[in-house]
C-alpha cells in the first residue's frame, strides 16, 4: 500500500523515516495506558504511534494480576497502576526436558568437590523459576506490541520475575518514567539534516556538507591519479562542480560572495582538514605551497622503512619494535622536520596494509 505523502494525514511520519527516530529502535518504556491507547499506523500495521513517535517495542514493569497457562506460553496480565495488559510469555523448550536430565547422576563425578553437572542443573532450575510467576509477583517484560481480537497485548521477547523486597525497583521506575516522557516521548520527533536541501536557515551546516564532499572528492582524486605532490591550484577545478550545484539550489543566499571567493574558502578549509587528518603534509615550509600526499609519497615510505630496518637490528628494539614517537623523531631528522604525528600514523597504517611493516602492539612497529 503506497503512501502518498501529499494526501496522508499530516500527523503520521512517513514510514521511510521511521528508522531515523531512535525511539523506534528502542524498547520504549511507556505507561500501559499509553500502550493500550496508541493509534495503529495507517502505513504499516503492527507499528503504533505515541504522539509523533513510531513504536513497536515496549518495556513494562508491573504486578501480575492474572495468569493463564497454555502448553507453549504463559499469559500474564500485568498491572503497572495505569493499565493492565496481557503479556504472552513463551515457554523455553530447554526447560521442558528437565525431567530427563535428573535421573543419571554419575557417581564417579561426585568425587570432585565441585560437580559441574549439578551446578548446571541448579542454574537451569533457577533460571526456570524466574520465568514462572504467580499472582502478586513483579514482572518485567520486553516485547513487541500486537493487537489480537481487538485487544492489545505484548508478545514478550524477554521476561523475568523481579525480586523487589523493598520496592526499590518500582520506586525508581515511578521516578524515572515522567523524566523519560518529558525528555523523549513527549518531544516531537525532529527530522535530522533538514538543511541538506540548502534552506536559508542551514547556512553553516550546508558548508559542512560541502566541506565533507570536498574532502572526499580530493581523496578520491589522489587515489585515482596517484598524485604524490600538488599545489592548491592544481586541484581547484575539482571543487567547481560542488559550488556550482549548491549555488544553483540557493539563489538569493549570499549574493555578495563571488564564485572565486567561495572556491578559495572551500579549498582552504578542505586542505586544512586533510592536513589535520594527516592525509597531506607540506614537506618544506616555503612560499611555494606544495603538498605531499602521505599515502603516495614513496620517499616517506622508504624513510620509514629504513628507520625501522636499522633500529630493529639494535638490541633495544629487536623484540618489541619501535614506538611511534621514536619513529617520528627519526623520520623527522631524516626526511622532514614538519612531519606531524597524524601523517606518520597514516603512513604507518598504509605500510602495514601493504604488509611492509607490522605492528607488534598498538603503538609499536617493526619491519618484516
Amino acid at each position, binding site marked *: 500500500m503506497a503512501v502518498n505523502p501529499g494526501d496522508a494525514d499530516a500527523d503520521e511520519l512517513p514510514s521511510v523515516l521511521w528508522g531515523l527516530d531512535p525511539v523506534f529502535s528502542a524498547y520504549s518504556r511507556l505507561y500501559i495506558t499509553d500502550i493500550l491507547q496508541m493509534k495503529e499506523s495507517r502505513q504499516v500495521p503492527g507499528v503504533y504511534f505515541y504522539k509523533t513517535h513510531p513504536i513497536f517495542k515496549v518495556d513494562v514493569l508491573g504486578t501480575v*494480576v*492474572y495468569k493463564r497457562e497454555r502448553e507453549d506460553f504463559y499469559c500474564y*496480565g500485568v498491572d503497572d497502576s495505569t*493499565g*493492565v*495488559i496481557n503479556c504472552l510469555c513463551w515457554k523455553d523448550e530447554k526447560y521442558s526436558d528437565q525431567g530427563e536430565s535428573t535421573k543419571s547422576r554419575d557417581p564417579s563425578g561426585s568425587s570432585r568437590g565441585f560437580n559441574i553437572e549439578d551446578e548446571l542443573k541448579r542454574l537451569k532450575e533457577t533460571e526456570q523459576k524466574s520465568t514462572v510467576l504467580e499472582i502478586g509477583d513483579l514482572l518485567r517484560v520486553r516485547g513487541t506490541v500486537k493487537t489480537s481480537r481487538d485487544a492489545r497485548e505484548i508478545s514478550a521477547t524477554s521476561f523475568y520475575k523481579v525480586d523487589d*523486597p523493598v*520496592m526499590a525497583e518500582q*520506586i525508581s521506575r515511578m521516578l524515572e518514567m515522567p523524566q523519560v516522557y518529558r525528555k523523549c516521548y513527549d518531544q516531537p520527533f525532529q527530522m535530522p539534516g533538514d538543511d541538506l536541501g540548502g534552506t536559508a536557515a542551514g547556512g553553516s551546516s550546508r558548508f559542512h556538507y560541502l566541506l565533507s564532499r570536498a574532502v572526499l572528492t580530493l581523496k578520491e582524486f589522489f587515489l585515482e591519479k596517484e598524485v604524490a605532490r600538488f599545489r592548491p591550484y592544481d586541484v581547484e577545478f575539482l571543487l567547481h562542480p560542488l559550488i556550482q550545484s549548491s549555488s544553483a539550489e540557493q539563489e538569493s543566499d549570499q549574493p555578495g560572495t563571488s564564485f572565486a571567493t567561495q572556491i578559495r574558502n572551500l579549498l582552504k578549509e578542505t586542505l586544512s582538514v586533510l592536513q589535520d587528518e594527516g592525509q597531506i603534509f607540506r614537506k618544506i615550509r616555503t612560499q611555494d605551497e606544495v603538498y605531499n600526499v602521505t599515502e603516495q609519497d614513496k620517499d616517506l615510505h622508504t624513510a620509514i622503512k629504513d628507520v625501522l630496518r636499522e633500529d630493529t637490528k639494535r638490541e633495544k628494539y629487536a623484540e618489541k619494535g619501535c614506538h611511534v614517537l621514536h619513529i617520528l623523531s627519526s623520520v623527522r631528522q631524516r626526511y622532514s622536520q614538519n612531519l606531524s604525528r597524524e601523517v606518520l600514523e597514516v603512513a604507518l597504517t598504509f605500510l602495514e596494509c601493504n604488509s611492509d611493516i607490522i605492528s607488534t602492539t598498538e603503538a609499536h612497529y617493526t619491519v618484516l
Partner: protein
Amino acid sequence: MLLPPAVFHFLWEINTDLVKDGASVRTYGRSVHVLKFSEMVRLISYEPEGSKAILSGPQSSAQCHVSVQTTLVEPFQPTLGAQYFVLGEIEKTDGLSGVILHARALSSIDGVDLTLMQKAIMEQRCFFNERMPEICASSPL
C-alpha cells in the same frame, strides 16, 4: 476485558470519598492488628475461615486505618509492625470498620524508604495531572 488497573493511593485517601466503592487500588502500610474473622460478608465474628488484618499509615490515626481482607492471599503469615504492600478492591460499608480492602496481592516490603515512596507516587501523580488536559483534548480510543 481485563481487570481494571490498580491506581496508587495513600491510606488516608482510601478512607475519604476520593476512592470510590469497588475501585482497584494499590497501597502500603504497617500492620497493627491481625484478627481471625468469618467469611467475607460479615466483619465481626470469630470463626477461623476468614482472616483480616489492619494496616495503618504513618500517623496511625483512625483516618489512616484500613482493614484488609486477606482470604485471597492465604496463607498469610503476618508480622505485626511490618510494612506491607497491598493491591486489591475497596469495599465501603457502613459498618464499624469502615473501609475494607480485599487483597488480591500482598507482599512484605520491610525496609522500604517511605519518604522516597511517597515522593515517587506524588511525582507520578503530578505528571498525570499535567497530561490530563492534553489527553482530554485528543480523541480517546
